[in-house]
């Protein structure tokens, strides 16, 4: 009895949490897509500011990590492919795993560490310092004012970063291909282009978009649920990172499964 109760309780808590995320996302979507047509304020400046912080500032670290991941994929792939005498397939292996899976995932992990945690910390600190209350007393709703610009920035920048990460991963793989697998840059790039389908790229970008939504929703939700006291901000930040990573992987699984079962046989 106690065991089933625990499971039931955990399920309800989990569903309530996802419901909270959905409500936050819905509120932000209303602020972005509907409110401007009803005379609401468009806060482009705040969204651009967020986009710079989320996207442009993350470029160096995303580039470096994706380049390394591409290189690692090439090394790991080559190890097996060499035994089969199919070393020339290393370009395909890197291209497909990068665009479908590791480009979006590694980008999401970096964005969680940089921005998801920052959202939780920012909103959590504002909560502790009564700044969220201050916004409300000024008749400024926190969701349109604070959360909506973050959503806009993340929904645009995570797919952009992912595309860049795909490219850097291919370059990483290529640096191995050219130095040790008998490719030239021209043949490597051509092999890569032959290997990936538009569908792969699209799947990666759809995933990236969803990751952006999930990371923002979790980061902001954790921020808003910060309790009293500054140590609570640290707790929210940690919790935002852990929950984001879990939910990103879960969303990844769902989309990969949909892709698998709808793919032409």
């Amino acid at each position, binding site marked *: 009895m106690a065991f089933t109760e625990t499971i039931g309780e955990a399920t309800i808590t989990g569903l309530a949490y996802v419901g909270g995320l959905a409500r936050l996302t819905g509120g932000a979507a209303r602020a972005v897509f509907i409110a401007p047509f009803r005379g609401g304020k468009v806060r482009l400046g705040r969204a651009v500011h967020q986009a710079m912080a989320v996207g442009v500032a993350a470029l160096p670290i995303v580039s470096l990590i994706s380049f390394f991941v591409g290189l690692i994929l090439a090394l790991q792939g080559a190890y097996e492919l060499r035994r089969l005498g199919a070393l020339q397939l290393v370009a395909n292996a890197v291209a497909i795993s990068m665009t479908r899976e590791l480009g979006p995932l590694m980008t999401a992990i970096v964005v969680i560490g940089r921005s998801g945690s920052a959202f939780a910390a920012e909103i959590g600190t504002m909560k502790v310092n009564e*700044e969220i209350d201050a916004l409300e007393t000024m008749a400024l709703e926190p969701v349109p004012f604070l959360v909506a610009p973050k959503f806009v920035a993340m929904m645009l920048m995570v797919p952009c970063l992912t595309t860049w990460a795909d490219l850097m991963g291919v370059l990483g793989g290529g640096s191995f291909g050219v130095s040790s697998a008998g490719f030239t840059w021209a043949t490597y790039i051509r092999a890569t282009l032959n290997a990936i389908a538009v569908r792969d790229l699209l799947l990666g970008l759809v995933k990236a978009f969803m990751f952006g939504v999930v990371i923002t929703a979790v980061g902001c939700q954790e921020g808003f649920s910060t309790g009293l006291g500054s140590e609570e901000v640290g707790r929210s930040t940690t919790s935002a990172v852990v929950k984001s990573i879990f939910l990103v992987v879960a969303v990844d699984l769902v989309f990969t499964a949909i892709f698998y079962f709808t793919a032409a046989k």
Partner: protein
Amino acid sequence: MFRSEKKREEAPQAADGPAIVVKNLRVNYGAREILHGINFEVPSGETLVILGGSGSGKSTLLRTLVGLELPSGGEIWIRGKNFAAMTGAERDELRKKMGMSFQSGALFGSMTVGENVALPLREHTSLDDSTIEIMVRLKLDQVGLSGFEDYMPAQLSGGMKKRAAIARALAMDPEILFFDEPSAGLDPIIAAGIDDLILKLKKAFRITIVVVTHELASAFLIADRMILLDKGNIVANGTTPELRASQQPRVRQFLDRIPEPELTGEIDYLQMLTGENPPERR
């Protein structure tokens, strides 16, 4: 500033009636009732000080008045409108006429002082940047912070932060100003400066002011009327001289600073917070 002065001349009846009327207000946190049916009025242009010890419910009362907590019963009339029953745009319109200065200041840490004061103007008016800049300078001037537009809140002292927060609360030319513990955490000299500022604002703009505090000296200096809250009930309500002369034991105890026997157990503490006997523990 001039705009709202004019508005007041146009609608004298509204200005003459009470700015705030609270009727039988009840507020709950979960199952626990914090305020047990509060009634009072604040006449326009007067300063009301809400006194009370820790756990008396005075902060909850203030948060409910500005709409941060929802009442579980009763009514709050602000400028003749039932604020507690309002929602959405209507409620926001009324909120723009109210300014709130928080205990910690609650300035936005990521913005300069000038941007903090400009924020409500940018969000709620269609004034151009140069007009907003002039208004920000004017508001900072009124609170004695001229030239601090480009400072970050973290660079200001406690008293300056509070002044900046008051400037932000004044940005929309409010008709009612709320203060949560204006002198908390300030040394007596700086705190006296804030009291002076409140008096100055009242005289200059005839704003209705509601202050929550437990600083007696400051309360008697700025108040026209006072309320003493205890365990979620009003124990005294009157003009400042009336309260000073009151012979009610609870008022005397508070004003004469007579200590209460110290609380020793959890039960005593809960009782102090709720004013009720806590449920039997297993």
